């Protein structure tokens, strides 16, 4: 099946015995009717930790001159202010669309 949001292919994963679909593009998760309740019930019953959701991709390699933290969206530049983050996002969006 394809993601209703970004149309990338979705893959099926087993989480606590429940089949869930995760989008390979935006990482969004699709749950069938009742699956969220099943997951919530199972996780509250089980004391042992639930296996983490698949991360999708291993970290890609970067050049030696790359950003020190291989950061996502320049997160290490942020200082917890929404306005700052919004400006950062707008500025990068502008860069994505400019020569």
């Amino acid at each position, binding site marked *: 099946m394809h993601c209703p949001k970004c149309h990338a292919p979705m893959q099926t994963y087993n989480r606590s015995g429940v089949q869930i679909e995760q989008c390979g*593009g935006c990482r969004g998760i699709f749950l069938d009717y009742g699956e969220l309740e099943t997951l919530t019930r199972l996780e509250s019953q089980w004391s042992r930790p639930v296996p983490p959701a698949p991360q999708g991709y291993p*970290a890609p*390699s970067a050049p030696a001159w790359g950003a020190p933290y291989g950061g*996502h969206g320049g997160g290490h530049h942020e200082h917890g202010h929404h306005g700052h983050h919004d400006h950062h996002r707008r*500025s990068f969006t502008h860069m*994505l669309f400019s020569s």
Partner: protein
Amino acid sequence: MTILPALTAHVRADGTPAAPTTLADRPDATVLRLGDTVVKAHAPGTDPAQLARRLETAARLPGILLPPLTPATEVLRDRLITSWPYGTPVDPGNPAAPWESVAGLLARLHHSTPGPALPPMRGPAKAARAVTRLRAVRHARLHPGARPVLDAWAALPAWARAEAPMPGPAALCHGDLHLGQLVRHPAPDGPWLLIDVDDLGLGAPAWDLARPAAWFACGLLPPDDWTRFLTAYRAADGPAVPAAGEPWPALDVPARALTVQTAALAITKAAAADRPLDTVEQAVVDACARMPAR
């Protein structure tokens, strides 16, 4: 003087009462949309023969490049004009960029047979122009970011600075890839196609991967987006990087050049507006400072 009023009159020459929408009005390009038609006034000084070869390429590869409405250019005052069908651009508000589609289009473009007499891809020339603009900014030498950018530029091989022919087997390249160079045609939900043939030509195909590579290396593009793009390009058998193993030996020089180009334009714009660099611009300048010296 801007070509905008003359181009507007040109678009409405058939007496249509509707007013066109201005999609872009920059010194190097003015683009208007009227209904299903988009007209572009190309940069002053554009070579008519070279633009004609590039238009022919777009007409010849309709599943990869948006084909022009007419195969010939027109002349309006001192500018060359081309006409295109309207396509729906990438939505800047939607973070789910079509990375797989871009990668597949580039791989097919890079494998296409170029037409005769196609000029070189203009990527390195655009990078050189950005550095020339930085050097021309008054007080640019005083800008704390200018020195690392110019040093990183000087350390690049001559071909990446447009001072020598590009190495390796030449492929058909777009030359200026970014997310503004994609449209869905027919609008609104046809397949994605590449637009803007002004920099298209023969050259090193890694240049077309170098902007996303540079954004990732600068810590701006999320690693998963970069991986999606690179994986899809390899899955489509793209020739710019080896099918497996390290992609960076092939990407390093063009990604450094695009980082320098982006940093140079950012400093030029910030200096013109007399404002400091923002965090995104600073990240690109910082990457230049970490690059190897000559």
